[in-house]
Every structure is written in C-alpha cells, then in structure tokens.
C-alpha cells in the first residue's frame, strides 16, 4: 500500500473526507457550541447570583446601621423596597428567601405581625428545601400564636413535621402554646420532650426550659413528691 503515488494519497484523503467530513464538522460544532452554551449559562447564573448578592448586602447594610435603635421610617421603606426586589427577582435563591426571613424578623420587632406572617407564608410557598421549610414553619407558628390564634398556631406547628435537628424548637413552641391554652399536662410533656432533644451545650436554653417546666408544677396541696435535688457540698 505504501507504493501509492502522491496523487492517489490525496485522492484517498479526499474520499475519506467526503465520507466522514460531515460528521467531524458536526461533532466539532456541537462540542464547541455546547461548551460556549454551558459557559454562557454559567456566566448568566453567576451574574444573577452576584446581582442578588449586591442587593442583599445593601439590605443588610440598611438594617445594620439601625441596629440597637428602632429603625427610621425612611430606612423601613428602603428595606421593604429591597426585600420586594429580592423576592421578585431572586425567589429561587437564598437571597430572596433570606430577605423574606429578615423582613419577617424586622416586622415582628416593629410589632407588625401581619407582615411577618405573610413573609413567612411567602417563604413556604416557594417550596424551599427542608431545613428552610422547617425553620419558616416554626417561626410562622410563633407569629400566629402571638396574634392569639392558638389553635391555628398549633395546626401550623403540626404541619411542620420536624426532623430530629429541629425537634427541640418545635417542642418548646408547642409547650408555650399548650400552656397558654391551659393544657398543663400537655405543656409539661412538650417541655420535657424539648429538654430531652436539646443539645447539652445549650445551657441557657436548658435553664429557660427548666424554668418553664417548674412553673407548671401540678398544684396539689402538700405535695410530698416535690423533687428535692440531693445536693451535698462534700
């Protein structure tokens, strides 16, 4: 075969190119096109994320300047504006979601429970991932309870279906609501379960829960089973 003339060689190559050239060109175009497509897509995602990031930073700055004191009306309007932009354009990222959480927190501070409730409901409507859903849900239950709708609050809490990590949070809120409803036994049970699922390092939290629990001690006269912690110095 090596005795082919140069002309024949060229001829062979041309033939090969005729047979396969189309595929080679297509493959190259697809590969290059795909690559550019992918990077363009990524660039767009990044651009979207960084624009969200910038707005979000602005939101944090606006709130931070006001820390300690009540926020001015001007700043409050700016916060609301930034939050609505973030919610509108970044609802699918943490920027939109976190902006709503922040706004809800600020609203509670201002005593505007309705706004807080609607922000938290908005977060839940976005069908966020599990950790965010559980967090927003328990906050929602507290905001509803603060408006005096204890049965609704309890229902919101039930809907939370917390995983292990969030159980203490849920149980404490449940205890608070039940004790307001006068269901002492239920509240005691809830606080006890909160104490059990509590991270041992959270001592402040533990003290607070114990305080709530002690306060519900059944008021039977001459209770001989009052717990006497056996503490001895030596």
């Amino acid at each position, binding site marked *: 075969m090596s005795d*082919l003339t140069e002309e024949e060689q060229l001829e062979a190559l041309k033939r090969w190119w005729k047979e396969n050239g189309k595929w080679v060109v297509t493959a190259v175009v697809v590969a290059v096109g795909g690559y550019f497509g992918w990077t363009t897509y990524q660039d767009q995602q990044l651009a979207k994320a960084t624009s969200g990031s910038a707005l979000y930073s602005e939101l*944090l700055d606006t709130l931070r300047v006001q820390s300690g004191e009540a926020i001015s009306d001007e700043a409050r309007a700016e916060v609301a504006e930034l939050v609505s932009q973030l919610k509108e354009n970044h609802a699918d990222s943490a920027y939109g979601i976190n902006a709503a959480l922040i706004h809800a927190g600020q609203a509670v501070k201002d005593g505007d*429970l309705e706004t*807080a409730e609607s922000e938290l409901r908005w977060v839940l409507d976005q069908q966020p991932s599990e950790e965010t859903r559980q967090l927003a849900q328990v906050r929602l239950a507290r905001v509803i309870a603060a408006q005096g709708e204890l049965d609704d609050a309890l229902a919101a809490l039930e809907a939370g279906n917390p995983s292990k990590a*969030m159980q203490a*949070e849920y149980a404490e809120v449940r205890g608070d609501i039940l004790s307001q409803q006068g269901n002492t036994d239920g509240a005691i049970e809830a606080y006890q379960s909160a104490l059990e699922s509590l991270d041992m390092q959270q001592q402040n939290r533990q003290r607070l829960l114990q305080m709530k629990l002690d306060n519900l001690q059944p*008021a039977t006269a001459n209770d*001989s089973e009052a717990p006497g912690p056996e503490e001895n110095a030596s």
Partner: protein
Amino acid sequence: MLQTIRDNSKGVIAGILVGFLVIIFALSGAEALFSGSTQSSEVATVGGEAITETQVAREIYRQRQQILSQYGDSVPSEFVSDERLREPAINNLVQRQILIQHARDRGMAVSEQTLDQMILTNPQFAGEDGKFDSNRYQQVLRSSGFTPAQYKQVLRQELLLNQMAMGVGNSGFVTADELERFAALNYQTRDFSYMTLTQAQVADEVEITDADIQAYYNENQQQFRQPEQVAVDYIDLSVEALMDRIEIDEATLRDQFEENQAAQQSRQVEVRVAHILFEKGSEERVNEVQEALASGEDFAELASEYSDDLGSKGQGGELGFITADGFPEPFVAAAESLEEGEVSQPVTTDAGTHLIKVLEKRGNEEVTFEDARDQIARQLKRVQAENEFVTLMERLSELSYNAESLAPVAEELGLDVENTGLFGRSGGPGIASQPAVTEAAFSEEVLERGNSSDLIELASDRVVVLKKTDHKESFIKPLAEVSEQIGNQLRQERIRSLLAERGEALREALEQGQSLEALAAENGLEVKTVEDAERNEAGIPRALSSHVFSLPKPQGDAVVSGVSTGNGYALVSLTDVTPGSWSALSDDQQQSLRSNLARMQGEQEYAAYRTQLRAQVDVEQ
C-alpha cells in the same frame, strides 16, 4: 486503508489534533491539566469536595492562635497540641464546607469586584498614604501563608457564610407576648419562710468508736493500699544549670554591647496590634463595643463578633506587627501613642472606624549598657554552656552506662547527684513530676535489672540519667496510720445521714400540718421569712432558692417542703407567688432583653438548621 490514511495524512491529522489542544487550552487554560498534581492529601470529603491536609494544618494553627490569644501563654502545651486540635479543626472545616456548598447550591455568590473592593479598602494592606499598596498586600499574605488566589477564596467564603448567618440566624425574633411571658417567669418573686437544720446541730450526737473504725478498715483494706514505690539517684544536666557556673568578664560584655548597638541602629519601633473595624455609619456599634470593653469584655472576642475586617476578625482582630510605613498615618499614630494592653479611642481612616489595641511594643527603647548587661551576659553564657552541654552529654552517656553508682560519674564530670526519695507510678515531687522520668524509673531496665537509665531528654537543652537506690513493694497501710482519716470520713457520713433523717422527719411533720414556727420552737431553730425573693436572691443558699422556685404554687394553703442544702437541711413553707412584669422593667432592660432573646433564639435556630444540613450531606472521613 486506515493505515494509509494514518501514514499519508499524518500532517493533516496531527494538525487537527494540535488544533483541538489549542482550543482546549484557549478555553480553559493550561492550568487545568496540571492543577491536580500539587494538591495535598485528602482528610475528608464533603459532598464530593475534598478537605486537604493543608487546610487542616492551617485551621489547627488558627485555633491554636485563638486559644493562646484568649488565655495567654499559660495554656499547657498539650491543650494546643496538633493531636488535641485535629478533631475540632476537621469538624470545623467540615461544618464550614457544608455551609459554603449550601450557600452556593442556593444561588449565593460574591462578585470579583466586591472582593477587590474589600481588599482595596482593607487598612491592613494600605501603604503610607493610606491607599492600597500591592507590595504590602503580597507581603501580608505571604506572612500568613496564603497565595492571593487562596486569600480571595477564603474571603469569598467568609462573605458567603456571613450572608447566610445574617439571613437565617440574625433574622430570629422574639414576639411581644413571648417577652411578656418571659418577664413574668424570669422576674417572678416568691414569699416563703424557712429554717435550717445545720450539721453543727447534729454533730454532737455522732460518735465514732474504735470498733467502727476497725470494722471499716477491715472491710475496705484495698482502699488503704500504698502502691509500689521507687527512689532513684539522678544527674540532671541542663544548659540552664551550666550557665550558672560560667563567668564572663566585663571587657567581653562591653565588646558585645557595642556590636549589638551597631546592629540595632536601623531598627524602628514596632507595635503588634489588633483592631476592630467598623464600616462607615456604624457609630452605635462603636459605642456598644466601647461599653463592652469598659465592662471588661475580651477584645479578641468582640473583634470576632463585631469587626467588619473579615481578614482579621477570625484571629481576634490581630494584624501582627505593623510598622510606621505600612499603615495609614492616623492608625499608626494612635497605635504608637498607646501602652501595651491599652485600647484606643475610635480612629477614622479611609476604611472606616477602628478601635485599636496594642498587644506588644518593641524596639523603641534607648538601651544603656547597664540595662543590656544582664541580657548580654545571659546570651554569651548560653552560647558557651550549649557547647559544654553537648560534650558533657556524650560523656555522661558513656560513663553512666554500666556504672555501679552515679556518684563517681557526677564527680568526674563536675556535676551533682541527687535523690528523688520514694515515689509511685503516678509521679512525685521535683523531677519525679516529669512523666518521662517516672516511666523510666519504673522501666524493666532500671527497676528490675538495676541498670542506669538511658539519657532521658526532658527538653532540647536538658537531659537526666537515673539509677535505682530503693524499691518498696505495694503494701496495705497499718491501721494506726489511717485511723484518723477513717474516723473523719465515717463521722461526716454519719452526720449527713443523721441530718437527712432528722430533716425528713421534720418535713413529714410539716406535711402533717404542724406549723413551721411550732417545729422551730420545739427544735431550737430559727425561722426566717423572705418576701418577694427573686431567683438567686442574695443571702439564700442556691440549692434552697432553686428548690423554692421549683415548688408548685400554693392554692390557699402554704406549700411545704424540705431540701438538702450545702451544709444543712432546709424546711420551707411557700406562701405566695407573684409573676414578674414586663412593663415594670426599664426601657434599657426591655431593650437589652429583647435583643438578647432574639439573638439567642436566632442562634438556636441556626444551630438546628446547620445540624439538619449536616444530616442531609454526604460526609466521608
């Protein structure tokens, strides 16, 4: 056929291949092909991303610095050893990585411009004119072991973590009715009367006889076992001790002093500082931090909480040694005017407002010969002693090997031999407190064969050699030696149980309806009445007060109960409970309670959120 094409169109195909490579390089950078080779080994992977040995080493270093800056150099070295810090360091990195991935997955990012802006305005990187100085930037990064790319990466991560924490943790709140209920509970007061039966009141009735002691001794023999003990002769050879024997004459000292002076001419004042940076418009936070400092809170902790300088907040605000030409003028002027340990008033630069703390100052003293004399003498002695040390160490090793006794060895070398006295495996006073010495003294070589130990290196400039002089097997101490100890122990036990017995009896009487006053009179006790006692009321034993606040609320009749306190048994009659009131609190109290509870709530929720994330991510270690 194929062969033909290969042979004949080599040039063309090779051209196409090269063309491809050119495209790949052009698109991704040649770096992509080689970047894998320089990475250090993996310690763990988090959701498919590796945590490397280098990162772990850096994190260990960071944690160690943090502990040292918080507790000073007095921290025992084993508390900051690599082994001890490794686990927490890895955990921390894993936790961080999980959050960063979470932030990225959820569409969070920080732009190059933002990062550049932060670097440009960081006072740490500012030159003389207060503007960014790229040489200084490179230098600072090098000294902390970062390449610019790594530094940007860390900065980016810090920003993401901060954005996440602000959104999830800092959005925590506390509602008005939660605050009211908290105040009602926390500021609740109780009225009660109590009397205390003390140990002293029953002590007279307790008598311990010799027979009791004997019986206890017989039953608990093993408690009184004296463990095996050994005594050793030792020669302690150290540079420190050798230095004491060396004399340096005045002339040599002067010569050295002149030499040092010449070398020091060029040195400048150097100040090691930490700072807390506040971006513009955070005057309130400046005040907040100043107040916290005035009330004695730790600067480093405040820095890590408040500082807007992300580069240094993790290190307690520490910037290392700054020199007059590396930082903006007002910053340096403030730093130089302070004494060690002082914190400046707010200082304003282009970057914002700083609170500066001087950690250390050096280099500004005008040194006289008299001041420097001792130090120079020490240096010269040390050099000489180190030489002697090496020689003596070798000879000590030779001579002590196979020596009948250490005394002649010591004499030959001009050293002293000393004896430890008897000590057990858990160590003893003096040199026996060194674990290495105890271990060697109880080794087979020294304890059983009676040979000299090898040289034991206690530090790089100190060695010891041991030889056994006495050995005592474990034995049970005779009764005479321990009878007093047993007597006291039994007495205490008896008093406690008698006290509890009496206390319980009184409590039952109370519960049967007898009055506290009547019982007090009967037993010669004094009744105290407290009104509106708060939780942790001063003058009330903790155990009593927490018991009183855990009692059910009285409904008509007083609630009676009893509890062991530190040194007695208290009988209580609880008469009234008054809830605390939110509106009775001052504005300041309300304000601080509101923000503290909201913060605590947010932190808890964020902790739970992170735990939940961790459960969702695949971590391999």
